[in-house]
């Protein structure tokens, strides 16, 4: 059984946020508008964290860390959902059942990475902007949680195609599968099967530069970072 994971090389990341923009476009994430964004309600399934500026003037540095759902192996969000509207599928992807979610937001408060977003209002695609909505990804109604899905719609498509052609999915098809990876101009992101020891992500996750965020919390995230220099 595959176990999907991602590796992001922080040395190569340029902090450009192409990943953030591409994810929004791919997953038909509605924009919040100035008032709602000011309240902090803008939805970015994938964001780039700016760590604190450190060092002393003028030798100042800052780390850029693209953050998406970690698809943890011991996910605190799945643990606390009262109706099992969020669950980890058998390939390790943590998903949300938009039809079942009751909007209690316990998962959102439980996630230590802050990757879960809530639809405070019915999402709007005003006027002609509606035409740009991606037909492969369901839009979400008001009052439910949403978050990164590891582009599972693309994953399913690739798997289906491989099955049709009677072969396995290749690592090459997977590395840039997610919209964020595909859009990264610095080619700093990799996706793939952690169970396959030869895959790019498996190899990179074994690198001495590899680390995860908030490791001590024991959530066992499946997104690895490679330390910058």
């Amino acid at each position, binding site marked *: 059984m595959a176990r999907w994971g991602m590796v992001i090389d922080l040395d190569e990341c340029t902090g450009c946020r192409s990943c953030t923009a591409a994810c929004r476009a791919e997953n038909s994430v509605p924009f919040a508008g100035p008032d*709602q*964004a*000011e*309240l*902090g*309600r*803008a939805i*970015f399934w994938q*964001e*780039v*964290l*700016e760590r604190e500026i450190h060092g002393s003037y003028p030798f100042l540095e800052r780390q850029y860390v693209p*953050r998406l759902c970690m698809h943890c192996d011991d996910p*605190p969000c799945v*643990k*606390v*959902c*009262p*109706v*099992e*509207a969020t669950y980890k599928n058998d390939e390790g992807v943590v998903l949300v059942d938009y039809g*079942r*979610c*009751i*909007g*209690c*937001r*316990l998962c*959102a*408060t*439980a996630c*230590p*990475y*802050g990757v879960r*977003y*809530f*639809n*405070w*209002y*019915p999402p709007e695609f005003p006027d002609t902007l509606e035409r740009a909505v991606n037909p492969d990804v369901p839009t979400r109604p*008001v*009052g*439910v*949680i949403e978050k990164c899905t590891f582009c599972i719609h693309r994953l399913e498509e690739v798997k289906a195609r491989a099955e049709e052609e009677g072969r396995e999915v290749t690592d090459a098809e997977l590395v840039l599968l997610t919209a964020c990876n595909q859009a990264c101009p610095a080619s700093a992101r990799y996706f793939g099967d952690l169970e396959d020891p030869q895959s790019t992500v498996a190899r990179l996750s074994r690198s001495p530069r590899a680390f995860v*965020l*908030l490791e001590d*919390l024991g*959530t066992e995230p499946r997104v690895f970072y490679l330390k910058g220099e």
Partner: protein
Amino acid sequence: MLRPEITQTQSEDEALLLAPLTRTSRGFMLLVGLLATVALVGIFAYIRQLSRGLGVSGMNRPVYWGVYIVNFVFFIGLAHSGTFISAILRLVGAGWRTPLARAAEAITVFSVPFGAGSILIDLGRIDRMFNVFFYGRYASALLWDVTSVSLYLLSSIVFFYFALLPDLAHARDQLTEVPQWQHEMYRILALGWRDHPEQYRRLEKVLDGMAVFMTLLVVTVHTVVAFVFSMTLQPVWHTAVLGPFFLVGAVFSGSGAVVIAMAILRRVFRLENILTWKHFDYMRQLLIALSLTWMYFMITEHLTIFYGREIPEMQVFFQRFTGAYAPLFWAMLALCFLVPFPILLTVGKRSIGWMVVAGLMINVGMWLERYIVVLPTLTRPHLLNELAIGTYTPTWTELSITAASFAGLILLYALFTRFFPIVPIWERSEEVEAYLHEEEGE
């Protein structure tokens, strides 16, 4: 209109207790009118929220919870004192509790629905609330909540009702000058109670048994409410002390509410000889004990955090002590302990008025305490992300719903006192005592 004089005789007491059931004073109508208005504003606010979405509140990312959850914890907490007095004190045989028991239990019965209601109001998809029953997962602390609060509500109502039965029968039999519908109500609700000694003995046994169950439940309920927070990994929430802390706080705020209720009832219904100094004094001692316990938990929690200096926890710590929540935090300390505690020790000994002041302060302070538990952690989670500003301002929607919840609680309580005796008549009756001891004596 009957205006019973203040006497010591039982039948006169009884008359006093039944008097409110027969008339509607103008003051009462005004009160009901006012409370109903406040409640209606809240209902309107909720309907608006339902049609537009939770965006009308001030909640955002990362502050996913706000005043609604605070209300939830507060109202459930408020209920605990009722159970404490009517169940736990019943088990230890503290006889002084008798006149207070129903007044206290009424707080429980009427505030738990608002607690549960606050959670429902907070749901993004209340139309799917039954999913909790269809797809409920017991690994989730929220489901423990649902279960225990439901059980608590149900058993409190049953307990309350059973304890009310003999008095309903009494009202049915004694009150002849009430409207037909009211008489019918008593008749139906009395379930054919016939005042037999055997019935009383059985009733006592049932109430004793339920008191055990309720005691276990009251410990579980608020601990489980705390688990919703402490089972997450968020800084300052994830602590073992939260469960006991919530429990103590609950009984604390509830007891303050009981004192307020007692004082009001005593004044309005002229119950000076039934709710005496002695009762206030016992409540005062209870409140002192609870204050100290509460402060003990407060100090332990914060000292531990401060000594350890873990970064995520210190962020929340400073939010409370010096940051955006400092004014509310210090106000809470003042209102929960620093001011009322000396009052309880000194002037509270002699003056019911001061007791009421202390009780009010404690309740406001405890609401603030729930706020302080919930909000600062949400504003400073582990990874304060890109557009997560970390502030929260409740909107008029949330505040009016809160006001409506309080108004609703008081309204239901007031309506109850209008139609039902607020002090148990049968439990104070010498006849009934005789029935019960008869068996023992034999």
